[in-house]
């Protein structure tokens, strides 16, 4: 049986030749991302901003009366509602952010939600409440805090582990690659003003996990090659390691992509944000392992002396056989 080969054998692409331009571009992108987050801000969903997100179906209508709803809810005086189609044409999601004046009043979100629901119900008898997320200012503040702590703690612990298992340069590199991934994801959310919710935090965590996996695979090969080819120039050695793991990188990314794309096209609307975030993250994560995590090792001056040369059991037996024979 002839097997499919996604990547030709013995590739020798000099990835790291373009490391400088890529690094410059990436650093600019990271800076731009944070600038976007600072200026445009993240479009916080109700999890982080407080307020309510109501999902509803107008069962007897072809299409949801979005313009009419916008007017009716806007007239209640809680600010401009965000009303979007959510799934079928007669399904909508209505998002109203908690007004700043009542951020400290923990009962306010609930009262506002009740008022909005009863207003819509009065005007549209075919209104069916499919879902309601309703978060007070107090809880949303806690969510923000906890999400940041969890992300920071996880990233730091990862860096420490890699430092212990590899060398400190690798820890820095892995951490920087993660920083790159998180920054670009946040920048993307700020640029397109996509809704940033707790689900997206879960997606970012998945991206971090995936990117890290990728980085470790490349690093592991670098470590191995550093022990094996003790005189090879570092840039060449990194290129060799990336090339050697290229087939695996392509195969794994492709597998994940084809597992995720159906979820994007046929999956439930509630999973769309999460899925698209992970799909984008696969590209960003793969890129960062090659162009962010690896070149940093050159600048941090990793050398073969950082590692004791090694010989596997099989290699030892082969060497003994050679010596005997």
């Amino acid at each position, binding site marked *: 049986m002839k097997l499919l080969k996604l990547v030709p054998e013995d590739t020798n692409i000099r990835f790291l030749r373009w490391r400088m331009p890529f690094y410059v571009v990436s650093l600019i992108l990271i800076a731009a991302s944070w600038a976007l987050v600072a200026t445009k801000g993240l479009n916080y969903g109700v999890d982080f901003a407080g307020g309510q997100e109501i999902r509803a179906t107008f069962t007897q209508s072809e299409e949801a009366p979005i313009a009419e709803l916008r007017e009716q809810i806007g007239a209640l005086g809680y600010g401009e509602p965000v009303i979007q189609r959510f799934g079928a044409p007669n399904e909508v999601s209505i998002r109203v952010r908690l007004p700043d004046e009542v951020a400290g009043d*923990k009962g306010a979100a609930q009262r506002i939600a*009740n008022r909005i629901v009863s207003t819509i119900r009065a005007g549209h008898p075919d209104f069916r409440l499919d879902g309601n997320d*309703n978060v007070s200012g107090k*809880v949303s503040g806690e969510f923000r805090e906890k999400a940041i702590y969890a992300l920071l703690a996880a990233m730091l612990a990862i860096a420490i582990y890699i430092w212990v298992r590899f060398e400190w340069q690798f820890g820095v590199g892995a951490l920087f690659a993660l920083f790159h991934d998180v920054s670009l994801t946040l920048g993307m959310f700020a640029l397109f003003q996509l809704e940033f919710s707790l689900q997206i*935090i879960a997606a970012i*965590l998945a991206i971090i996990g995936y990117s890290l996996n990728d980085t470790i695979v490349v690093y592991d090969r670098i470590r191995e090659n550093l022990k094996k080819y003790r005189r090879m120039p570092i840039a060449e050695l990194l290129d060799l390691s990336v090339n050697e793991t290229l087939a695996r990188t392509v195969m794994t990314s492709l597998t994940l992509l084809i*597992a995720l794309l159906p979820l994007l096209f046929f999956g439930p609307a509630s999973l769309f944000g999460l899925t698209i975030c*992970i799909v984008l993250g696969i590209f960003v994560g793969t890129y960062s392992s090659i162009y962010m995590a690896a070149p940093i090792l050159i600048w941090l001056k990793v050398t073969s002396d950082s590692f004791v040369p090694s010989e596997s059991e099989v290699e030892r037996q082969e060497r003994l056989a050679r010596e005997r024979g």
Partner: protein
Amino acid sequence: MLEFPTWKRIWLCGLTLVAVAAALPSLFSLANMPWPRSLPEPMVNLGLDLAGGSHILLEADPAQVRAQRLENMEESVRARLRNAEPRIRIGDISSSGGKLAFIVRDTAQVDAAREEVLPLTYGAGLTGQRDWTIEVVDENRFVLTPRPEGLEQAVTLAMDSATEVVRKRIDELGTREPTIIRQGDERIVVQVPGLDDPAALKALLGQTAKLEFKLVDVTASPSDIAQGIAPPGSEIVPYADPASEGVAAIAVRRLGGIKGDSLTDAKQTYEQQTNEPVVSITFDQQGGAKFAKLTSENVNRPFAIILDDKVLSAPNINEPILGGSAQISGRFTVESANQLAISLRSGALPVDLTVIEERTVGPDLGADSIRKGLLAMGIGSLLVIALMIAVYGRFGIYATAALVLNVLMILGVMALLNNTMTLPGIAGLVLTIGAAVDANVLINERIREERKKGRRVVAAVENGYKEASRAIYDANVTNFIAGVLLFLFGSGPVRGFAVVLIIGLFTSVFTAVTLTRMWVAGWLRKARPSDITV
């Protein structure tokens, strides 16, 4: 590496079987098939975001417990000193700054007063711990200060009984399988699956149902009331429905009323003449006696029926009510009367609860999510299987089998641990599946490389597993560390992600590395191939 003694093989197969068997009840229920009743059924719970239902987070205000305690203390002190032999007169009572202060009019009685008050300051427990400290300043001024331990205990007790009341009320609604959990010091989580509209539930939980009967202070002038000035010993209480009463508030005597916590029953009925919905209540013996006393002493005077600090109505006492039952009127609808009856039956909440977070997913949306999610995952799985087999041939088949077992084992372990699968959990599942695929890709690519270097089949496979294992190990340990930290620091949804991730890392290493190695080893031993296509 490729040695698998029989005992080890039995062990591995047994472990796999147990985990997969534990996943079966969940799969059966997902496919809407009956699971035999006689068998144990560990279940993966579906989170409310998938199954539909309401998640409601309630928070109490401890300041209220403090205020209530202060008020109770004031009443006890007054009663105690009034009934003392000889009577001890006190005055200038204030309860500002969380402390209760009063003066004993006759300085000669200070010591006697201390004797009387002292027993009131002990906690309810058997430990004999003092809940309040007594200070006497300026000769005759008593200051009672609550101790923090006592306050803390009071809040805990209030929350315990609030949780009980919440449970009773939800049971009255007849919803199936509610989950009611205390969270932290001041919060209660209520989860009710499969509810169309939780409005009734929320209204029920938001109602404190503190019922009081207090005498109306007829001496207060309407203009004073309008300005919020109450005569001494009275307080201004607003009407629940000022528009239809014509006045905004009335003055009632602060003390000497009856609390509605001594009821044995409450139900919605109709007032006989007007056919208006009312709530009829029945007092227990003690409450009935008090109520009879109050009504017989105050015939032809109005008394106010107060619910949660709002006056429902203020009828005249036409005759003494001796039977121990009464009717509460207050412009109810049948629905609101019924709701009040439930609240009164289950007892008042010892503290107000506010809904600070609500997440409701309608059952249709939940079912739709699951159906579409399963369809998408099915298509995705088929594509992945096709790709793996096309690229790795026999080794791809092993990898796919491992992948399927991996998902089953994750479900099985989750079922055994009684975990909940949520939407973020699905993200975790995707990540672990990715990790499992990656492990096999790493191994197979490595075997390819080793073959290319000219190693013989067994050596190539052995070295492939060995060399790839290092990266797999490191990647999984880092993700595991991240998962544990996320679980420790994260909030609900992040935890849902972390749980699946942590379980999935173990099962994916087990299936993708250990099990495939056992299968490959078995095949190599039996077929002894001189060449392999990988």
